[in-house]
């Protein structure tokens, strides 16, 4: 089991959610919803594209895509084809009004799931997507789960990258991570060591290892 249950609505909205944002008019806080899409993304997805050097025409799979806002932003830039997938029941149950691109109910954990993802991109035979990128999926997993997840991603894309919200140590105690204690926190270097040879990309700075 992952460290947190991504099917649990409380992980997405409410006082214990991983996301608490304010709308443009200052009202809130609200959780993971479209009204705060730009606040949650900022320019991070643009920096990710730049950091990985993703080019138009390359096929892209995004796992843990949530409501597909990265896919939406990249499609608007002319990238793709893109397949966005997220098997969270919260995401699948709240797509209306929050997602404008299709969100496949897949996690890539089985051959059948991976086949459906590739099919969504129009890939035939054993062809892989150019990119398979996870969106902040690793921090909700144990190390063992993350390794397994990464290995399955390599069966989907030729190039595998993990986009990760890397935490910081508390200013008053360097032995403690400042972020939500439910998640798996590591330095970017430690993530790299865990999922080598995949690329790991730090959200916010787009540092790539």
């Amino acid at each position, binding site marked *: 089991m992952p460290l947190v249950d991504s099917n649990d609505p409380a992980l997405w909205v409410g006082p214990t959610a991983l996301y*608490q944002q304010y709308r443009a008019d200052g009202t809130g806080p609200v959780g993971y919803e479209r009204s705060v899409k730009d*606040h949650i993304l900022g320019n*991070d997805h643009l920096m990710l594209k730049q950091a990985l050097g993703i080019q138009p025409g390359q096929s892209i799979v995004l796992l843990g895509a949530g409501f597909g806002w990265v896919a939406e932003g990249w499609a608007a830039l002319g990238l793709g084809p893109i397949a966005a997938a997220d098997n969270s029941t919260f995401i699948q149950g709240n797509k209306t009004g929050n997602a404008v691109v299709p969100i496949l109910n897949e996690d890539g954990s089985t051959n059948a799931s991976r086949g459906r993802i590739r099919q969504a991109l129009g890939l035939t035979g054993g062809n892989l997507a150019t990119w398979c990128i996870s969106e902040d999926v690793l921090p909700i997993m144990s190390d063992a789960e993350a390794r397994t997840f990464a290995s399955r991603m390599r069966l989907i894309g030729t190039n595998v990258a993990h986009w990760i919200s890397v*935490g910081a140590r508390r*200013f008053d105690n360097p032995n403690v991570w*400042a*972020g*939500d204690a439910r998640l798996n926190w590591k330095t970017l270097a430690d993530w790299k060591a865990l999922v080598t040879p995949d690329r790991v990309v730090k959200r*916010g700075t787009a540092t790539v290892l």
Partner: protein
Amino acid sequence: MALPTTITGIGTDVSCAGPFKSSGGNIYFVGKESSGLRRLIAMKATDPTSSFSAVGSDPNYTGNIPVKHIAAFQVSDVIHIVASASGGTTTNEYRYFTFDMSSDSWVITNEAIQTGLSTADLAGTVQNECSIVVRSDSTVVVLYNGARVANMGNSYARVVYARRASGGGWTTNVAVDALGTIDGYVLGSVLGASDRTQFAYLYTSQNLHTRALSSTNVLQTAVNSSVLVATTTQVQGVSFNNAGTQKICISAAGNNGSGSDTIAFRFDDANVPTITAVTVETASASDNIPVRIFNDSATFYTVFRKGSDSDLYLESSTDFGATWGSQVDIASLSVGSVDDNALSCNGNIFQRGSDFVIAYVVNDGGTLKYNEYVVRSVAFSWYPMHEIITIVKRAKVIPVRY
């Protein structure tokens, strides 16, 4: 008595706001009390070379939590003040005050802008910075660290603004920074032309950014100065109308090439200005915080600490910050290293007696002092020859008998 004048009863952990000169010629500044940490205190001197004393009924900060930052903006005899306070991670707040120098009284006290905020950044450090400007229509604009946001379990500090209608009532928590997964830190704000407000802020280990707010409350595109500034500083700005072009200069400590520079960010006020960062002084392995800037009729003065002797130094510019003159040691002091609270902020240059002075309140080795630096004296008025002849012609000659 001679300057500097020792101040008692005011804390040194928060920089004072001012000094300001009233229409009655008295000198004021606002600080927080040295013990208890809760009250704001307005200090007044009729003769600042003699002594300062508290005036008005000092307002106790609502909630009785420690004051963390004070910023002020003078409009005639009224000092508009925003003060932040923090009782911990989730009890951060911002309140608005006004002090009337004509009556020596606090008029508005503890008016809540936002309360009950968690303002922690990624590392959990609570942020309490704020700044204030007052527009010509009496609306008040406050830039501050708003409620933090959570993004995938991390906390990020935010830069937001609030606006007070001329009749009262606040619009709060309007996002200024770009958000995403990065901390935003408040630096300061300056009033430009036509009631445009220029906000200055930065992101973690990144450059000073500005973003303009129009008089109709439309936020413009942010501008990246491409020069890194220190998060530990508050910035002060000056704004001067030069024949229709509003010249703005913001001072800060940062890295403009040498690693530790006193920097003037200069630009012509616009919705999306072009910012030029000019190195005023290179600190050369010694810190230069605090840094402040002042304006005297189109001559800009940057005041900064030098680590080599802990004194305050000054450099001037007569071309709106494009070039700066030689440094002058303006006072022998012991200003603490990287202590941005050691020097008052938001003050300006005013005439006192026959001199125009930069007035400041400084923490000199643990003792708070009021001091001045004379930038010029009042010019002697020479009468043109034709006026002298006219005066002589009009003079009534009284015969003198011997």
